[in-house]
């Protein structure tokens, strides 16, 4: 670590900016947007029983709902209570609410909870009785939005899959001036692993201690897994990214943590660190804090998601930045980042089985599943949680840069198989699965800091421990009466270069 100077970015600006943005990150404060919504007539007579209540994970979604529900409540003459809570609170509050019959009328499921579980436990109820001409309404969604085992069960429709999961949390966002000074143009020629490393080194060198090539939220441990897996997938090691499918090559059903691509991805991160190209102090930064430092000139690149784009455009309108795909090794083509489903499972909304106002929930669901609702959504939320309708993505008023990011995702992200869509009973395996410690994220973090050594050895140990944990989870599920098999993690007809769709499940 070199002697640091305060030239370029002043200490004052660093402190002021970091504090302000840190506070924003902590409090979830976001500017309210004056927004016009085109809300159609109700789909059925509405009669409120107390306030209509809605809960989800907030963030940019909260910006939309706070504005939308204000107008919706006025139009419909009802009171609406919206709660946007962090995931750890949803994970605690919602199950308690369901058990105590105090849960909201509409909710997203706790993170990691398979929808099959919520259906089986009687937490949620189908939309069929509330949305007229349901089949026609569903036809407006892109193919693959509704899947048996994900949001359909026994022919009934349960969830509202209204945001796209074709998003990566680890694409390149960069300072155009720094990158130009370093002699690279990722928007014309996407970075490969070599140029990624070289550009980071040159940015650091050019800045003479004022900035670094790459910044990350190293204290937010999941970032290490997200970045490593994305780099490995771009190197050609296609694998799953969620729950019991994490790190599994579905063509064989085998874990691939110890593959050359994963090893290479970790080696790349360590090489960047050895070059001195990574912002010092990343272990004290979470992802929002790291994000806040880029527009201030502290770093040339960050590997994060498209949610940076509207935030930077809004809060740092003078910051000139570009976007590019996640780096792949030189000469690699036809590799993709794999998403677990077309619709974001985390954002999928359900109607409480004991909702006091199920028809109002369905009315809102219906609006969000129309092109107008999707466009309104895209106008406010932008690429953070993009609308699932391609037309809404194209027609919304989000910035050209945001639209370019979504177009880029069409090129580099493919929808992979989802084990729960094959056999909903696998949710019993997910419930029994105990992720080994250290996980992929923790292992990579340990390797990065030097607390663990031997990349191949550590990743092989991780693979072995994960296999043991999966076997134990399958056994526990079977002992509990679930009809499951580990063979169901093998999707022999999967081709990572194209989306895995409903017909593929049927062909198994």
């Amino acid at each position: 670590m070199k002697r640091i100077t305060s030239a370029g970015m002043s200490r004052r600006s660093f402190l002021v900016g970091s504090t302000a943005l840190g506070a924003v990150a902590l409090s979830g404060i976001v500017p309210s947007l004056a927004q016009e919504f085109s809300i159609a007539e109700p789909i059925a007579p509405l009669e409120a029983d107390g306030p209509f209540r809605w809960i989800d994970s907030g963030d940019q979604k909260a910006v939309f709902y706070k504005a939308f529900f204000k107008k919706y409540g006025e139009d419909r003459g009802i009171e609406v209570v919206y709660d946007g809570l962090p995931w750890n609170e949803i994970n605690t509050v919602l199950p308690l609410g369901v058990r105590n019959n105090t849960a909201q009328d509409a909710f997203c499921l706790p993170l990691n909870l398979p929808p099959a579980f919520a259906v089986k436990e009687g937490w949620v109820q189908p939309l069929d009785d509330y949305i007229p001409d349901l089949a026609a309404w569903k036809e407006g969604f892109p193919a693959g939005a509704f899947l048996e085992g994900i949001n359909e069960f026994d022919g009934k429709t349960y969830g509202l899959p209204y945001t796209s999961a074709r998003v990566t949390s680890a694409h390149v966002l960069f300072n155009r001036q720094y990158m130009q000074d370093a002699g690279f143009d990722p928007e014309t020629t996407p970075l490969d692993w070599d140029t990624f490393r070289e550009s980071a080194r040159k940015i650091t060198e050019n800045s003479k201690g004022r900035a670094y090539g790459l910044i990350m939220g190293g204290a937010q441990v999941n970032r290490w897994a997200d970045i490593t897996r994305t780099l490995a997938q771009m190197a050609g090691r296609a694998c799953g990214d969620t729950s019991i499918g994490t790190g599994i090559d579905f063509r064989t059903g085998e874990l691939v943590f110890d593959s050359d691509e994963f090893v290479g991805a970790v080696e790349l991160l360590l090489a960047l660190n050895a070059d001195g190209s990574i912002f010092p102090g990343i272990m004290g930064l979470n992802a929002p804090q790291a994000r806040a430092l880029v527009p201030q000139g502290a770093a040339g690149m960050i590997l994060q998601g498209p949610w940076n784009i509207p935030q930077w455009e809004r809060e740092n309108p003078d910051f000139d930045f570009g976007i590019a795909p996640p780096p792949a090794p030189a000469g690699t083509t036809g590799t993709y980042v794999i998403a677990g489903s077309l619709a974001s499972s985390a954002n999928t909304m359900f109607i409480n089985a004991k909702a006091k106002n199920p028809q109002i929930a369905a009315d809102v669901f219906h609006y969000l599943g129309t092109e107008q609702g999707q466009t309104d959504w895209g106008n406010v939320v932008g690429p953070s949680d993009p609308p699932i309708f391609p037309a809404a993505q194209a027609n919304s008023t989000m910035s050209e840069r945001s639209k370019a990011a979504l177009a880029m995702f069409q090129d580099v992200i493919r929808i992979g198989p989802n084990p729960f869509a094959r056999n909903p009973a696998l949710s019993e395996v997910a419930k029994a699965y105990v992720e080994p410690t250290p996980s992929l994220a923790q292992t990579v973090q340990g390797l990065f800091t030097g607390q663990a050594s031997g990349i191949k050895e550590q990743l092989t140990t991780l693979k072995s421990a994960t296999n043991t944990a999966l076997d134990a989870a399958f056994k526990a599920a079977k002992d509990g009466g679930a009809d499951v098999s580990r063979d169901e993690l093998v999707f022999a007809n999967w081709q990572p270069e194209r989306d895995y769709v409903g017909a593929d499940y049927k062909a198994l």
Partner: protein
Amino acid sequence: MASSISTVPHRAGLGHRLWQSRIDYLFLVPGMVIFGLFILYPLFASQWFSLLNWSGFDANQAFVGFANYAELLQDKYFWDAFARSFIFTLSTVPAQMAVSLVFAIILNNKLLRMSALFRTLIFLPVVTPVAIIGIVMTIMLSPFNGPVNIGLLDAGLINRAIDFLGDPNLVLWTLAGIFVWKWVGVTMVYWLAALQTVPAELYEAAKLDGVKGWQVTFFIVLPMITPFAIVIALISAIGALNVFPLIQSMTQGGPYFASEVMEVYIFRNAFATLNGAVPRLGYASAAGVFFGLAIMVLTILQIFAVRYLRSREKPNGA
């Protein structure tokens, strides 16, 4: 004889006495309800949860007896966190007590001007939200233009910036230092209260006898307030074992578990699992109960220590 017997007061039955004092007990009800809801229920519920294989999500609570405890005993990360909690406590409590005692003795001097201002300044971090301290300290300690590093570099004390929160060998000590800084004001107040128990006559007598200032402190004041030290140490230790907000806001237990104390470990297992894994509330509860028992043992040891010290204070034969 008969008359003497008749003078012994008749002791009313328990029920009668309760009824007689019913208004008093009525006023206790709100406190007891709150105590039951927020202290007793969580206490017993966590013990029950610790015997379950339960995610906290569903109604399926599989009773597994002491299996969670058996697994805990073999969990390297549990023992590491357990050890770190006590290392953190054993390092912060003496430092906090010593520094605060110095502050208290100095500020207890009635001749010191602006002592109220100094007390306020020292107490200020206590009332500052931990989350704010976490953010500010992350900035202050940053190896990239952090004021602390700049100061050390400018003073020539170091020749390269120190990554206080990213170096696994430094992170726990850095957090301990911040913790002491934040809470030293409270301990100082305890010491100031203890110092009020030293009779003014003793100071005057010592002055008349020509005892010097430091001798007064070491040979008169400190022996007088030593019994308070046990209680203050206990309160400080309990505080040092409740360090979750500070660590979660600054390092989340990292890097690579280097600052993972018991509370962070419990939180990680109960709520903050990664990659789609379902949380383990039962297992986390077992860790919490185990840790609680360990603290209880410490508390009992403290009681014995107080009794021992008091017995030494009593005159022979008393």
